[in-house]
């Protein structure tokens, strides 16, 4: 199973991006995410990972996510995940990390979060 990565920088909220993952984040594909995140981590502070289509994760993938989370926190930013499939949720529960991560259970929660971010980083007035 391959990994597809779609990075969507927010047009409305500065310093924010959504990263959509699909497929398998494992020993073979984790380096692809690591490479995709390198330039992104230099230019955003808040990343929401949309994992709706992520079918599988192993410790290799978790390491990349942990490293990204660490860097974002060091930059006074945030790391969040949404739409975890049962297998993915199970793996995070096993490694006891869920309390440390911010997980959105619905679009409304995510929208509220982004609205708060927008207020915090109001885009400059075009006029």
């Amino acid at each position, binding site marked *: 199973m391959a990994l597809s990565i779609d990075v969507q920088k927010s047009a409305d909220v500065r310093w924010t991006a959504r990263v959509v993952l699909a497929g398998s984040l494992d*020993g073979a594909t984790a380096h692809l995410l690591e490479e995709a995140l390198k330039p992104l981590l230099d230019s955003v502070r808040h990343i929401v990972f949309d994992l709706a289509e992520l079918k*599988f994760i*192993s*410790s290799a993938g*978790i390491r990349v996510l942990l490293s990204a989370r660490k860097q974002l926190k060091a930059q006074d930013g945030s790391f969040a995940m949404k739409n975890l499939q*049962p297998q993915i949720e*199970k793996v995070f529960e096993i*490694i*006891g990390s869920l309390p*440390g991560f911010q997980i959105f259970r619905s679009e409304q929660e995510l929208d509220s979060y982004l609205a708060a971010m927008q207020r915090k980083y109001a885009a400059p007035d075009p006029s």
Partner: protein
Amino acid sequence: MTQRRFPAVVPVVPEAVSWAVAQADDAGLPEARGLDVKLAVEEALLNVCIHAYGTGGGDLTLRTERTGEGFVVEIEDSGSPFDPLSVAAPDTSAPLESREVGGLGILLVRRVTDLVRWRREAGRNVLTLVFASPQPPEEEAEAGP
């Protein structure tokens, strides 16, 4: 029983994992359990590749079988003695960043398998992963006198 040999190197792990999952499929394991097989085998194989042979390199043998216990995967290597189960489990109450990332793999193996055993036999490490069959339905009790 099916068996295949692979070089014990990280780039080969995806192929070995796919092979093990295909055997699980053939053995009739449901898809969710197949994901457990995928996870446990990947984590176990990465452990072997990193620990067993040092710079020398070597092979590993993957074996799968349906037994009374369920679907069984055995990973055998002839590297130096290394019991992955002896690695202390990470403290899962500690903040994530401070935990030994190396212990995560074996923690995952323990939690998604029903049984995991390691033995040293004739110069080989043998790691056995068991994915138990679901319980058969209870037989109807015979009517009493």
